[in-house]
């Protein structure tokens, strides 16, 4: 290119660029598609091969073919279905609770007047900037053993923690609402017209009624976007469950899979088959609701811009 730039007049460079531009862009896109898809493709292929062939060619097609690994995962490991269930319960619970609470809080920030609102909103934005590592240890203490052990006032022992270690509640309680979702819903409610609510107010409907009967039904898109985003985050989350869950029967799928890997390192086809149970549901949900996922990314991008 550099020699060309020197010998060619400008117009010719552009003509040359116009000729190679589209093939070049298609080349980039196809190359990256292959890079993106290859690891998933081979992991599915090898999950369908016998364990003895965990590293053997052919790479791109399951020869010899077997469903044995999936059968092993679901029947030989009594804990596996349990992990699947735990993950599902937690992800759905957090999704429903957080979406509702974020919508309520976002509505309050966007529409209602109350003392301390600006300060609270600023605090909310501030908390988004604090790295998770800072609050990790105290959150662990609050959820589990307590911030102060054996705190007694006037002879009465005061608990300073929820005692939820090794309990799925530990995954739900701190996640019932979060700053990001609140912020997203606040922005959403600020962007929609107020006429409908004003009319309802004149008709004598209270704020509660307005929110639940008028506002929630018209916020479906925003609610679904937040719900999917939350589901994905909870379903995939790793560090917090790793810290608060102790016994294998309470693991969520990512923690279980990680533990699995340690136990069956040499039987990798089984690990891959297990992994599919974690990645496939979220990929299917992504395909079904692609529009909303893409919106959620665009919304994340908007918050700074």
């Amino acid at each position, binding site marked *: 290119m550099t020699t060309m730039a020197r010998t060619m007049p400008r117009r010719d460079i*552009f003509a040359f660029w116009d000729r190679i531009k589209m093939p070049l862009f298609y080349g980039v896109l196809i190359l*990256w598609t292959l890079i993106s898809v290859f690891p998933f493709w081979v*992991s599915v292929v090898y999950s369908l091969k016998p364990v003895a062939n965990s590293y053997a060619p052919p790479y791109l097609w399951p020869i010899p073919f077997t469903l044995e690994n999936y059968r092993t995962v679901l029947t030989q490991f009594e804990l596996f279905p349990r992990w699947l269930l735990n993950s599902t319960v937690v992800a759905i619970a957090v999704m429903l609770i957080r979406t509702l609470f974020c919508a*309520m809080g976002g509505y309050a920030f966007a529409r209602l007047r109350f003392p301390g609102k600006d300060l609270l909103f600023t605090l909310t934005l501030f908390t988004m900037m604090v790295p998770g590592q800072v609050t990790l240890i105290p959150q662990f203490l609050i959820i589990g053993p307590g911030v102060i052990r054996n705190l007694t006032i006037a002879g009465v022992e005061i608990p300073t923690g929820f005692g939820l270690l090794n309990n799925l509640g530990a995954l739900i309680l701190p996640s019932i609402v979060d700053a990001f979702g609140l912020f997203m819903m606040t922005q959403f409610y600020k962007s929609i017209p107020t006429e409908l609510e004003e009319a309802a107010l004149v008709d004598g409907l209270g704020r509660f009624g307005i929110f639940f009967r008028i506002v929630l039904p018209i916020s479906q898109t925003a609610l679904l976007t937040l719900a999917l985003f939350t589901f994905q985050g909870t379903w995939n989350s*790793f560090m917090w469950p790793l810290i608060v869950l102790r016994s294998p029967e309470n693991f969520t799928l990512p923690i279980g899979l990680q533990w699995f890997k340690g136990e069956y390192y040499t039987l990798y086809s089984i690990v*891959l088959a297990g*992994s599919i149970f974690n990645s496939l549901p979220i990929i299917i949900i992504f395909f079904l609701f692609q529009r909303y996922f893409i919106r959620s990314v665009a919304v994340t991008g908007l918050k700074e811009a």
Partner: protein
Amino acid sequence: MFSQAKRRKLSEWFTAYVFLAPWFFILFVFVLFSIGWAFYLSFTDYNLFSPPKWVGLSQYIRVLRDRDFLQRALPNTLQYVAVVVPIQTFISLIIAFALDQNIRFRRFFRTAFYVPSVTSSVVISLIFVWLFSKVGIINQIFHLKIDWLNSPTYALPTIMMVNIWSTIGTMMLIFLAALQDIPLTLYEAAQIDGANRFQILRYVTIPALRPAIFFVVTMGVIGCFQVFDQIYVMTAGGPLGSTTTIAYLIYKWAFGSTNIQMGRASAVAFILSLMILVVVLIQRRIIEREE
């Protein structure tokens, strides 16, 4: 007693506080109190079993003299950020740019690129541990015999690559949204003024992308400084500490060993926050100065 207006105002207050009650609970207990308590703990010696013992600044001093921190976690993390952030930003920008052209099957490409970003870090790590094992497919295809994740030289670069691979989908989408937001009239005006394609790129497209670039780089910096999942699953900080990052060290000191050091781990967490803050501010300066 109350006038109608006053009653309405009070009921609005009441509704707002009820609607925000869950957030008050989380904000005050799990966020603000936690930050304060972590700050307090960072000045103590605390092993979870006996009460925190006030030790002043000595945890910070000890961290700054600690071999694991100074010779492993700190350089590894900085190297990680310095390599991953520019590469992931650059590749995702190129891909977004290609997708923004008059491309067929745009939806298909966009979907394929985003799949790694919806998949859990654990599954991705498990797949790459297998792909990059000594007898794995990557070595077979390229006729190599590198023990990627058990080599102090290759382990960190391998994890960097995995992270770049898995984050590009999200970043590409942000750039694509920003590119599609640039008004066509801006391009038309530049063309009427006689700008050539290079000048349009330089004076229209890139300035319009600046907020998106700032956002993506910030996200990348924050994410990279806190990298944990991939490290935990793929190498557990090894071999020989070559993949120990700051976030991993915090986990190890607070939860991951028999010698629990919650005070020291908290001190590292604050040092980490300060580093993130400084890097983000410097980066903002640089992007603003370009203007």
